[in-house]
């Protein structure tokens, strides 16, 4: 079980045993009751969207956009096809929550998507699943087969006249496809390159038709909201930050894994749930929302609560809820070098500032890390980031720049030491011990 802990869980409640992902188990836990009720009572679609808006469910994929509001953008009287898409292309370094939702509770996603389809008037949907998690993709297909056999998806669902066909689409290794318009191009059988916006997907989405794209965890929360009411969901979190959230805790902690906690829970509580810092060492820094979120020094993050507003106020982003913990054995230059390599590797190449800029960022951080940094390199890094940010079609350019800006800002001394002394402030053997791979050397 990789959901290692929870406080008042909604998404992961009752997930015991190896068969928790099966339809029978899900139904025993009360699953599909929200969908059944809606289609039996023919609940007005406006009422559903209103309820989701009221719950203040904010997108769990990274941007935190209000879900109900997004659904309300869909044209109501559009005569042709409309689509609902689930974004399970989870490739933001540090994030591994959607994989566990699909592994342990796939029917909650299917039910959430079916409810969304009903609310926005879509008859077809796709779940775009990250390329590297083949076994999870196969499991989701099996869950779809179960739902189809039980008449919960497909034509004329439970005799209601409501049709919703749902399929899984398997990615094949491209971080950029987590960007929703790139994801749509990818489903169309093209290179996954982001589109200019506007038009937004609600007007021009998959195959040019109105489309709503939400994250896996977002869909997974929808059945709870309709079963228990928007107020119950909102009250579980804090104002403007409804509900619980899955946090993926990785890096230097004793028990890395997923934890479901109400938004607004102190970071210190989450860290404690994850077993504290590995080997009882000292916390140095934390990236609170996936690799694209600005890094925060220990003293800042220790004062934060885990919700969109608190993390934003501290100068970072809650993002996807991927908490990357770094202890005192971490060389911040090396950490940034690896992140910068990632964005350089994954830039789709469409926009010049990002394609060229990510290459510059990586090369300059690389040379600092390898003892060839120059006195004006930190200024150069800042200048490259400001020349990328806001000048690209999608957010990858910003995502590559924010780690650079924040690492250099908060750990400037460490970068300066590297440049001046041509070596690391943290000795290599200490860094090596930090990973815990060669246990004998710790």
């Amino acid at each position, binding site marked *: 079980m*990789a959901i290692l802990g929870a406080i008042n869980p909604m998404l992961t409640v009752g997930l015991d045993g190896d068969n928790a992902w099966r339809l029978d188990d899900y139904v025993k836990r009360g699953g599909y009751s929200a969908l059944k009720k809606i289609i039996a009572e023919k609940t007005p679609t406006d009422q559903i969207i209103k309820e989701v808006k009221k719950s203040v469910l904010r997108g769990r994929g990274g941007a935190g956009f209000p879900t109900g509001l997004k659904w309300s953008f869909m044209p109501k009287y559009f005569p042709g*096809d409309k689509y609902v898409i689930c974004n399970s292309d*989870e*490739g*933001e*370094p*540090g*994030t*591994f929550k*959607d*994989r566990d939702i699909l592994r342990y509770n796939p029917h909650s996603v299917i039910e959430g998507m079916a409810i969304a389809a009903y609310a926005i008037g879509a008859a077809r949907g*796709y779940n775009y699943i*990250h*390329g*590297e*998690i*083949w*076994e999870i993709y196969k499991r989701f297909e099996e869950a779809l087969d179960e739902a189809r056999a039980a008449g919960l998806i497909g034509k004329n669902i439970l005799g209601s006249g409501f049709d919703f066909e749902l*399929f*899984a*689409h*398997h*990615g*094949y*290794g*491209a*971080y950029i496809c987590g960007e929703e318009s790139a994801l749509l191009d*990818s*489903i*169309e*059988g*093209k*290179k996954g390159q982001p589109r200019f916006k506007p038009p937004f997907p609600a007007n021009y989405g998959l*195959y040019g038709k109105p489309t709503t794209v939400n994250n896996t965890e977002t869909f997974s929360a929808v059945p709870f909201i309709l079963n228990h009411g928007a107020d119950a969901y909102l009250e579980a979190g804090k104002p403007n930050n409804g509900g619980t959230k899955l946090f*993926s805790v*990785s*890096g*230097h902690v004793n028990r*890395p*894994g*997923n934890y479901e906690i109400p938004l607004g829970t102190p970071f210190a509580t989450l860290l404690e749930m994850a077993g504290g810092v590995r080997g009882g060492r000292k916390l140095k820094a934390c990236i609170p929302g996936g*690799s694209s979120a600005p890094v925060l020094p220990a003293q800042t993050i220790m004062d934060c609560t885990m919700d969109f507003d608190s993390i934003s106020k501290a100068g970072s982003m809650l993002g996807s809820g*991927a908490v*990357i*913990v*770094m202890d005192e054995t*971490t060389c911040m230059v090396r*950490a940034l070098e*690896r*992140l910068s390599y*990632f964005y350089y*590797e*994954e830039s*789709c190449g469409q926009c010049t500032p990002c394609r060229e800029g990510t290459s510059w960022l990586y090369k300059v951080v690389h040379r600092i890390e390898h003892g060839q940094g120059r006195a004006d390199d930190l200024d150069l890094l800042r200048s490259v980031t400001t020349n990328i940010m806001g000048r690209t079609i999608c957010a990858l350019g910003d995502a590559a720049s924010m780690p650079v800006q924040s690492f250099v800002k908060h750990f400037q001394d460490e970068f300066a030491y590297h440049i001046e002394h041509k070596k690391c402030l943290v000795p290599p053997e200490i860094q*090596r011990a930090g*990973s*815990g*791979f*060669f*246990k004998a050397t710790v």
Partner: protein
Amino acid sequence: MLTTESIQKIDREIAKYPPDRKQSAVMAALAIAQEELGWLPNEAIEFVANYLGMEPIAAYEVASFYNMYDLKPVGKHKLTVCTNLPCMLSGGVDAAEYLKMKLGIDFNETTPDGRFTLKEGECMGACGDAPVMLVNNRRMCSCMQPEQIDNLLAELE
């Protein structure tokens, strides 16, 4: 070019999309072709393109864009190790170094006997299980400490 079984798998993928949107199945079709052939020679990409009624260059664009397609032959077992930051903090880079030493090859190289190819991977969305590696794009191996790596290599002999 491909076996009947592979063609049937491709047909199942095509059926997921609207009838006039066969191109949507190109990613799956290329993956199926690669699974059968071990890698994607140009002829296979062209075959898939023709089967789906799209331009071969459009299928090639897809094959060359996504990281998990192999446009050159690889060993019998392709091992992709994630070295991204969260994995690195928990031994991902060390695991890759260990594999390089054990196999006597660097990233993007194949052992002389053709058994193993080593690749550096980007985030696989499994950071809590670091070090993480993927065997032939399909099988994910978690918490790969030296002992687990030794066992995996022995199993894949």
